[in-house]
């Protein structure tokens, strides 16, 4: 057997979070620990951590009329030299990929506060997809490990 390049290990985690913005810190800690255990390159881990933070924060803040009792499911997988994230929620139908990118060339006074998180998510990942399935939003994202 040839020794594989790099030291990262394949594996997955699934986390179910109450739809409360205070839970994001726990999510971030779990994703970082997962990344470290699977020896993801630091840059890749940083990107996946931030992309998941943005996706989940968005769902928690805007996905539900009443977030009490609601949850968001997050899966992270390392396989095939790729790290993948999946965020599933039963909130209102929303495809973040329809959010127009912010105008990065606008002068300070015209820069808008909205759309920054989605822009980061799309910029950090190689691929982001959205589907509505069984009355749930499913957002997937992936990044090659180099």
């Amino acid at each position, binding site marked *: 057997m040839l020794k594989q390049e790099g030291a990262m290990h394949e594996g997955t985690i699934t986390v179910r979070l109450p739809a409360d*913005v*205070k839970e*994001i*810190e726990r999510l*971030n800690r779990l994703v970082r620990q997962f990344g470290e255990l699977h020896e993801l390159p*630091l*840059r890749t881990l*940083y990107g996946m*951590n*931030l992309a998941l*933070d*943005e996706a989940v*924060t968005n769902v928690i803040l805007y996905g539900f009329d009443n977030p009490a009792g609601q949850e968001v499911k997050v899966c992270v997988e390392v396989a095939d030299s790729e790290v993948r994230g999946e965020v599933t929620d039963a909130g209102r139908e929303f495809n973040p990929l329809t959010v127009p990118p*912010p105008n*990065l*060339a606008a*002068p*300070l*006074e015209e*820069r808008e*506060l909205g759309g*920054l*998180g989605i*822009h*980061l998510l799309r*910029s*950090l990942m190689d691929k982001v997809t959205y589907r509505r399935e069984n009355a749930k939003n499913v957002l997937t994202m992936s990044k090659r490990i180099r």
Partner: protein
Amino acid sequence: MQIQEEKIGDVLVLTISEHLDSSTCNAFENRLLGTIDRGEKKILVNCGPLEYVNSAGLKVFLIAAKQIETVGAKLVLCALSPSVLMIFEMIGFNRIMKIVPTHEEGLRALNGEVATA
């Protein structure tokens, strides 16, 4: 997140550390906007010990930069780690905010001295 505050001459320096995220952005916003409200005119945010910033934290910088421009004050950010700087660049904030590599350059920029190359 921790914020340290010190005054160097007439420059107010805020040093921010650890994680600026959805759970800590309000505290940072209150602190930064508070310095503008009490009339500080030269504000240096040292991001050296800052490990992580998300869009909630980035929004605080944008809100502050807009307010600082309207009151005629100056804001400079310094010492961003490579990963934090990458996020600022990804969102285009390097075009609308003054970002310099070191604390010393930050002080020089606010004191109106031209940095010698």
